[in-house]
């Protein structure tokens, strides 16, 4: 088993295929030529840039540089989690809960994986740390975004039920319990589906990559199983933290539903 490097000519050969998309759009009058062109250029520039950035960072093996890049990734993930909401509720507080959750979970899960599970030399080796953090963030962010969205939408829908419980003297967390449970279930659905479908319906990107790079498929599978465990645990933790944070966000210190913030007044 060996790894075949791609020449720039090989990449160009593949680029011909995207031109076919453009021709199709023109022939069928889809009007997508511009979008295809922009998307293509963005993809090439972004992936090219990240390739060079990673090459640089991997060569340096500097803890500071690795930390900075990790923080940038977490910030972007927090932004992305909020951008996926149906309605902007809570402003900076919601941003804080989303990003805070991703920061805490991303850090915890990545440190555990680096130090306890893989143990590379040095322990912060960016070549391991950054892709693992990326995979953890990518999945946790989906869960966190779903949870925040579900909490807000469910609170709007179940306002009468939540306020009935509050009126009976229940606390903010008792009164929102059913909403929180619903949100946690929703947030965990994608990772549970991914675990069930993996290897049968889809072959995970990391495993595919390792196989293409010439790693023994069984070794690649071992790595994939390990990373799935980490991702599932990180997502579960992130989803629960975000749900509790969400319940806290939509209620106030006197245990009232923030109807104004939810746009219900």
């Amino acid at each position, binding site marked *: 088993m060996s790894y075949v490097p791609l020449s720039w000519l090989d990449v160009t050969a593949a680029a011909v295929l995207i031109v076919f998309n453009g021709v199709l759009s023109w022939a069928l009058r889809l009007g997508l030529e511009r979008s295809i062109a922009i998307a293509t250029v963005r993809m090439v520039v972004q992936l090219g840039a990240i390739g060079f950035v990673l090459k640089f960072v991997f060569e340096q093996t500097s803890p500071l540089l690795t930390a900075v890049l990790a923080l940038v990734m977490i910030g972007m993930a927090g932004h992305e989690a909020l951008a996926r909401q149906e309605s902007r509720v809570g402003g900076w507080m919601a941003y804080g809960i989303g990003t805070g959750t991703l920061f805490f979970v991303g850090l915890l899960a990545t440190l555990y994986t680096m130090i306890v599970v893989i143990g590379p030399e040095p322990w912060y080796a960016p070549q391991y740390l950054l892709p693992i953090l990326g995979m953890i963030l990518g999945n946790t962010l989906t869960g966190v975004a779903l949870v925040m969205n579900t909490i807000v939408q469910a609170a709007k829908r179940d306002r*009468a*039920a939540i*306020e*009935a419980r*509050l*009126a009976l003297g*229940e606390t903010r967390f008792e009164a929102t319990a059913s909403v929180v449970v619903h949100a946690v279930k929703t947030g965990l659905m994608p990772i549970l589906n991914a675990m069930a479908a993996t290897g049968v319906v889809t072959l995970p990107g990391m495993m595919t990559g390792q196989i293409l790079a010439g790693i023994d498929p069984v070794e690649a599978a071992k790595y994939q199983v390990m990373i799935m465990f980490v991702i599932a645990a990180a997502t579960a933790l992130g989803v629960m933290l975000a749900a509790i944070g969400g319940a806290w966000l939509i209620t106030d210190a*006197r*245990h009232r539903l923030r*109807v104004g913030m939810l746009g219900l007044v």
Partner: protein
Amino acid sequence: MLKVDKLKVGTLPPLSFAVAGTECLSIEGPSGSGKTRLLRAIADLDDVDGYVTLDGAERREMSGPQWRRQVRYFAAEPGWWAATPRDHFPSDSDPGKLERLLHALGLDLSLLDRPIGQLSTGERLRMALARGLIDEPRVLLLDEPTAALDAQTTALVHELIRFQLLAGRIVLLVSHDPAEIERLAHQRLQLGAQSRPDVDHRHLLPRRSIAS
């Protein structure tokens, strides 16, 4: 004694009034005049400036849940969160008391284990009344408790309200029914139309202010 002092509800001028135990205050006014918002403010379900005290203790001196265990808001459209009415009652409710309450409201005990969706509007309304009364709050804030009921069940609810008053409770009753107000209310509070530009503030004050 429930005292409301300079409570700023919506665009209404500050409201001040007091209701003693065994007394019922009716709250009247056209739709949108702030009747429901007033009850919600007293139950501390909305963030409203002003003071509400029960037997000398202001609502901010205790937690929201502690306040609402004594000052109970009954919504015009009650909310439900579990499958059957029974799941909504505290698990340590006295079964004898529950039975007496349901009986007084003309509700069959078997309704307790029926799915909520199978209860009629009137049954749900009375069930919510029973749920809110089982732990004996001091103040009942009733938002049109009989608007969806027929004459017979309305009479039962009136009887229950009167019984609560005899037991020393304080009742605030939002109602559109003059006969109901005549029958139950000791004092009346009239709220004016909210968005009238030439609001005469005297109309918005309690019709019969009560010295505390």
